[in-house]
């Protein structure tokens, strides 16, 4: 039987050294839905996002307790190959971070590290990914140029294309539009709309209008705790918790 949820976290605790950044977070993500994680700075939403592809493993003093599953399997189990996990759970970062390589090589990178060498296949997948990320028309004539010559918005869409090229099942986005201007932001949001047909998307955002525009489900974090999670419409119109209401109406945070 297919699990009903693509990913889940159950009673997840996270520590940075002595500081407990996440308290007992349990949340379930349905396939092909966009979930927005909102909350004031330092509430743990980015930390939580980075637990979902074990990005926090790179921080030496961190510690995780509880369970995170992908298709029902615990991703923190000792037998899990972290590189394989991250191929299935892709990530787009807050600040565009293209490699100092050509546009083509940036997108092809994920394929190379996965051992795909067939050049025709790589070329096809690069084109497909750039088209999916709605940047193909802007870069198709200069695929060999350095990616660092692109504008911020273009770089971010390139980073999305790069993440899509390895065909992940889940895409994590950590405030992907926070460093971009409104037009570039709009493009990214339209992109998210189209991507959710194929991917399960979890997006951290500071911008509540953005959360309302792009997501199906919204989760509100505060001080390392998951306060409330529900349909985006409900959260924004009839939140159950007072803290959620205060936050979305701008009374704090």
């Amino acid at each position, binding site marked *: 039987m297919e699990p009903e949820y693509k990913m889940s976290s159950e009673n997840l605790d996270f520590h940075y050294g002595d500081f407990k950044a996440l308290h007992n977070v349990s949340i379930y993500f349905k396939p092909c839905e966009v979930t927005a994680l909102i909350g004031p700075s330092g509430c743990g939403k980015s930390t939580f996002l980075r637990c979902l592809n074990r990005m926090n493993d790179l921080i030496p003093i961190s510690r995780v307790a509880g369970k995170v599953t992908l298709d029902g399997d615990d991703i923190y189990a000792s037998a899990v190959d972290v590189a394989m996990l991250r191929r299935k759970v892709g990530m787009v970062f807050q600040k565009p971070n293209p*490699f100092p390589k050509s546009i083509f090589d940036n997108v092809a990178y994920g394929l190379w590290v996965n051992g795909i060498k067939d050049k025709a296949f790589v070329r096809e997948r690069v084109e497909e990914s750039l088209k999916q990320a709605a940047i193909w028309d802007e870069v198709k004539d200069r695929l060999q140029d350095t990616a660092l010559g692109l504008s911020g918005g273009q770089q971010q869409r390139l980073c999305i294309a790069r993440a899509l090229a390895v065909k992940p099942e889940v895409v994590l986005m950590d405030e992907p539009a926070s460093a971009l201007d409104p037009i570039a932001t709009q493009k990214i949001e339209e992109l998210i709309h189209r991507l959710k047909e194929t991917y399960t998307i979890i997006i951290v955002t500071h911008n509540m209008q953005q959360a309302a525009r792009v997501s199906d489900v919204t989760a509100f974090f505060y001080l390392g705790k998951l306060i409330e999670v529900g349909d985006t419409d409900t959260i924004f119109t009839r939140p159950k918790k007072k803290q959620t209401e205060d936050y979305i109406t701008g009374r704090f945070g």
Partner: protein
Amino acid sequence: MANRRQTTEKAMRAMFFVITTASIAILFLIMFFLFKEGLPIFKTVSVKDFIFGKYWYPTSDPADFGIFPLIVASVAVTVVSGAISVPLGVMTAIYLSEIAKPKVGEIVKPVVELLAALPSVVIGFFGMVLVAPFLQQVFGIPTGLNLFNASLMLAFMSIPTICSISEDAIHSVPNALREASAALGATQLQTIVRVVVPASLSGISTAVILGLSRAVGETMVVLMVAGGAAMLPGSLFDPVRPMPASIAAEMAEAPVGGEHYYALFATGIVLFVFTLLFNIVADFIAHRYAQVGDATL
């Protein structure tokens, strides 16, 4: 008040300008002197015979001023020492900044840099009294003072430079790139080989060239352990006489204004051209492959 401040400002600028001009002028004067004392040898020997002549017998009668064996010796010790020091230095740098726990790096890096503080005469002494007899015994060769010993000692001298500058370059690669690579399912080794090292290649190249140019110009070590025979080496274990060693050893005996004296300065010119080339290449690489954005060295 404002006027006085402006005057001070102007005076300060003038002072800095004069100091800068003086230091550069002195360096140019040294260069001028080098050429003035070196070029007269070409009245006796043609440039071609000087550089490609196979015999260096400056005190015979008639004297032979062919520095080809010295050039080959310099190139050989540099290449061999580079073959030892570049892999060791760069890999140590990668280990320290990418793989080792931060605490290990914090302790080991200063220790490596401390190695750079070892006076070259001490390294030469070590090569002479410890490494030379060891080589002689193990390989059954007539002398332990040879090309290989000199290269080994020079490698020890360049490793700290190569390691320390490479480490800085690798360290300055933004973490965002490592995370991006990891998020695409790359292993740590793939991230190092395909992202971190290429992104810091200009810094690493600069490190390598600075390390090698230290080996080219180094005098004391080669004087002590290279063996000093001005002949073309046939094997790694033949004694050689690199250019700096030749100049240092013979300068005291060469009568000022004599042909030998001029020949030694001319050797200095050749050596200068070598190190100049190294520095130009280093500069070129640093600009050509300049790291961009946060990664700028």
